[in-house]
């Protein structure tokens, strides 16, 4: 089935020059430390903590999100943290292109590759690395420091490999995120 068209209220969303659509009802902390690649959508109630940066350093990119990403309602993007040599610090997070993050999912990964779909209500632990072309099923917990290799489907708590994605997945995910963006249109009012 085709994806349904999502109509949003024109007054709720801000559209940037590069086509990002950011809800005014999302929580963006430390926006000067956040980079959005373009044509990325931040839905109502999504949270990006760009303020959680390494202490002491000046301006630095804390969270970078690629093109055609879709951050669903209520998801939380929070840079990972750890105590190293007795010093507590936050570390930057990078999210690739064509990434969908489901509703209510909390992400504290170090990197998420491109062409990745993460389901609803997942927890992606600190410093997890999700490589390109992966799928994380709904309600999955990826423990801290886990590496999810390409073409994997992970599910459960702790998340485990349950299946492999087909070789065509890159094209499918790319088409899906583009379709999603094309169908995210302002309500005629």
């Amino acid at each position: 089935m085709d994806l349904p068209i999502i109509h949003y209220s024109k007054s709720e969303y801000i559209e940037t020059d590069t086509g990002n659509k950011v809800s005014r009802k999302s929580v963006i902390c430390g926006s000067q430390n956040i980079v959005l690649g373009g044509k990325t959508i931040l839905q109502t109630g999504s949270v990006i903590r760009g303020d959680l940066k390494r202490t002491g350093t000046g301006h630095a990119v804390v969270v970078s999100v690629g093109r055609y990403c879709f951050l669903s309602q209520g998801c939380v993007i929070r840079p990972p943290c750890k105590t190293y040599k007795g010093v507590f610090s936050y570390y930057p997070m990078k999210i690739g292109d064509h990434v969908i993050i489901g509703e209510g999912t909390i992400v504290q990964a170090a990197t998420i590759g491109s062409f990745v779909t993460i389901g609803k209500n997942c927890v992606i632990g600190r410093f997890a690395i999700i490589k390109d072309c992966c799928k994380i099923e709904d309600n999955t917990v990826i423990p801290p420091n886990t590496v999810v290799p390409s073409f994997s489907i992970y599910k459960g708590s702790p998340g485990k490999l349950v299946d492999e994605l087909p070789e065509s997945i890159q094209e499918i995910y790319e088409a899906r995120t583009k379709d999603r963006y094309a169908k995210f249109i302002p309500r005629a009012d």
Partner: protein
Amino acid sequence: MLAIDAPPGQGKTHQPFVHYRCLCSSPGSSATASTKSSSSSIHDHEADSTAAGTSSAADMNIDNTAASSSSPAPSSAGALIVRASPTSHESLFSEHHNPRSTEEIFASGNSSDEHGSMSLSRLYFCDSCGEIRCPKCTQDEIVCYYCPNCLFDVPTASVKSEKHKCSRNCFECPICQNTLSVVSDDPDVSLYTPGMTTAAGQYHLSCNMCQWNSNEIGMTFDKPTGLAVQLQKAEDGLPDVKEFGRLKDHLEKYFRVHGLKQGLPSSLLSSIQSGTLQSLRYVSSTNHKAQQSDDIAHYTPAVQVVEDTENLEKLMSITSLDETTSMKQRLLQLQNQTYSTQRLQPQRIHLRIKKSRRCRSCRHILVNPEQKAQATRFKINLVALNQLPNITIAHIQPMIVQTVSTVILRFTNPRQEEAHVSLEAGDGANPNHGVRILSENFTIAPFNEVWEYEVGTLTAPPGQAQEDVYDKTANSTSIMLYITPVAPGEVKIPLFVTFSFKARKLQTETGSPKLPSQLVLSGAAGRDSMPPAPEVEYVDKKVSFWTVIGFGDAVPTLSS
């Protein structure tokens, strides 16, 4: 009246879908397949399984490469899938390739089952056979081994000696199978450098998920590196592992003497160490029986199985299940299979493989990934999605019994050439829902990069003859269908699609399709589909296949 007519299995609702069928699950020419619905696919599955069962001997002769013919399933480490040999499949295919009359095909109608048909994204298209191939109709070959945790490539030569497991610092928790981290007692310790003085037993393995710690079983390390060597040494010393090695040597000697090609690459064997002595005893006794015909020397196990009364008593006194290991935990430690959680060992992480796929019918390579573990690109990727029209349900009306519902089907052309589609509805389905296709023949414009960003905004290119279709945008054409469900429940229809297009002429069509595997693996076959000749020759291609389209559940009419 309503209650009687209510759809069966009310709790479950069916979602609309579009599935494509591989030849192996399409209505065949055999007479039995044409009478009952779903019988044809059952017939084929049976044929498949018998082929797989009887051809293992043939398999041995055909596989030239050391690591081919079978691959471990990704999730179940060590499980072996022995595929049917290509020769037995060729005969299976030729049966399907017989010309069939349309009546026969339609009579077999909707013999779809969930397993026989699948979404286009899971299928391949062999351009030399001109047929859809499902994963079952492709043959896997191992391209490379890598560790799913540290993502390092493992050279094939060392895979066997390292028993298919990572020899770096990658371990799995014996309790929850999560990845373990190497931690130090000293929180201030920085990165380890060789030559650094460390306290003895300072390092241990710890699980982030269930909080298991190797201190619990008295396992500590002096250095944070080279742990795998220590663990493997301990593993190799186990009696079951030694026994397995002995048995393998014993049988391999026989294979060598008789000039038999080993059916399975022995590197795979090392990952299926069946640890139980009971099974070894079974093997040796069956060998004894086979001695008369095959003259394998009798095998005497070095380890004798004794009645394990101590274990039995311990197990009988258990009051909580937490005191013993679960079946899953035991099966993941085949070499000792302990009942005591205290004796569970952290395991080195199992390697994963990247694989290429060949068409079983013509041996042409369908998928060939780049050799490096971390690369996600493909040298060859003949997935069906990039070659066949992608059918999607663009609009659907609720299905009501004996009422006409309108459905819009969109056909998207992934090819760079204009394509022609003709449709026929299979009318032998049971229940046989009323289907009327408003445009049975139409064209689809070629795929063009420029259009990608303006989906749904462009109309037919100029100069195009206006066709009687519902809609035409960019590289897709939409048509209208009238569906009249005759019975409540899930509504699905068989649709026969003929897709014609002009394709670049393949060099291999004149040459031999059977390339030596070595040549193909080195990437030489990648140039097959792109002849270097400046003038491109085109040939007319025609591909026919069955699809099954589901429209969800039909509800009974109120008047009935």
